[in-house]
């Protein structure tokens, strides 16, 4: 799988913002992506060294559009710890 297809987007939430202070970055990845694939993708895309990866399959959430009921597609959340001193410019500064 291409690296760009693995790292769908960086998660920008209050929790992700807090984790960034301890050099942990959170990404949305496909549910079938493995830790090895995620590590490779992050290292190649952002030119950093990954020392730990934790993943979690996020629960699907029910959604309704009028009469039709369904679910919001599920995703895997990857928390990537980088080698101390390295960082990813996820959001550009002013």
């Amino acid at each position, binding site marked *: 799988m291409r690296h760009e297809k693995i790292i769908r987007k960086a998660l920008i939430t209050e929790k992700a*913002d807090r984790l960034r202070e301890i050099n942990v970055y959170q990404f949305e990845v496909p549910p079938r992506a493995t830790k090895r694939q995620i590590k490779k993708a992050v290292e190649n895309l952002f030119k950093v060294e990954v020392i730990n990866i934790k993943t979690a399959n996020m629960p699907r959430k029910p959604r309704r559009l009028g009469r039709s009921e369904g679910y919001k597609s599920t995703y895997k959340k990857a928390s990537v710890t980088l080698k101390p001193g390295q960082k990813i410019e996820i959001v550009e500064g*002013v």
Partner: protein
Amino acid sequence: MHYDIATDKATEKEIDITIPATELDRFIKIEINKLRKDLSLKGFRKGKVPESLIRTRYHDTLKAQAMNGLVTESFFKIITENKWRPASRAEMKDLKEDDEIKFRLRFETIPNFEIGDYVGIEVFQEEPLPDDFLLEQAIKELREQHANTRETTRPAVVDDFITMDIEIFENDKTKENKRNLKVRIGDRNLLDGINKALVGVRKTEKKQVRVDKQTYKIYIKKVEEKVLPNIDADFAKVQKFEGIEQLHKKLLENTKKIEEKRLEDTTKESLSNILLERNQFDVPNALIENEYRTILQRSNMPDSESNKERFRGPAEKRARLNLIINKIADKENIQVKEEEIMNLVTAMDVKLNDENRESIVSYIGNVLTKEKTIDFLYKNAKISKKSRIISPKEDINDTRSVRHRANRPG
């Protein structure tokens, strides 16, 4: 902040301002804090969005608002330091951003002028018209107010009422059809061609008039003349007066009040003209433009070159008079109480809300201050009475409708 005065005219200033870029950051932080309180973004609780994210997402808006704050702060700092009173908004130009932010501000200021003597201004005031003449005028007006109409068979003259059917054609096609239209001959709202055509018509007569591209086919249904009532004891009783003397007394009382007010207003206008003549100075263009817009708005006229030429002079005078009056009000400490403003607001039946409150209260406050100051000038003026003698030459050109009876020709 550092600034240099590039242009220093009486009513116009241009200032070159240099500010360190860190100052802009201070304003950006202020704007972020303002925005942060109410900002809700997905993934964050309300008010918890990090500063860095707000900076990235709203970079342009924040910068524009921060620039606005920076310009406003510098503008107020400069005008306070130099004791200038702004007459227009500051206009920013030549913006350069580097380690330092450089720009030029252009704005107009109210000129510093010394006001000439304004207490004890000598002014002439006309003698009031004699009572018998005023009463005669009032009776004339009253008769007109209570006039009736009566059908007549004679040819119609000016001021007669005509009831007619009218058909308007344009290019041989009916454009409009009006039945039982009642008009007065000589009414300014009527076309000149129609007014002329109606003079001399009789009942059942047919007329055809062509004005520009339109043809008017007229059928006269009725010609009515105006019948003025006699103002006598019977009329007085209908109007709930005991007798004709009481009616005359009331009429005279009212007319005298109107005449006194008219004389007072004319004298106040003369006082204003004297002040304008005595105090000549440059007026900021922004104030003239403001007065010009007010004149157009009140007379419901469009902005055009001819109107500009016509009203620029009066607008300049009005703006200058306002400045003079404000200066006098300051010197004499003439102030308007909140209660007086509110009384006028109630009398004018204006509904105040959060949006318009400030502007309306300030506008009415200005109007009342102006009124009070002119009253002050009037009370302190040296008024000499002048009888209304009209020379034969002046009489020919005199277009006033009310004239001193003793001097009327014949």
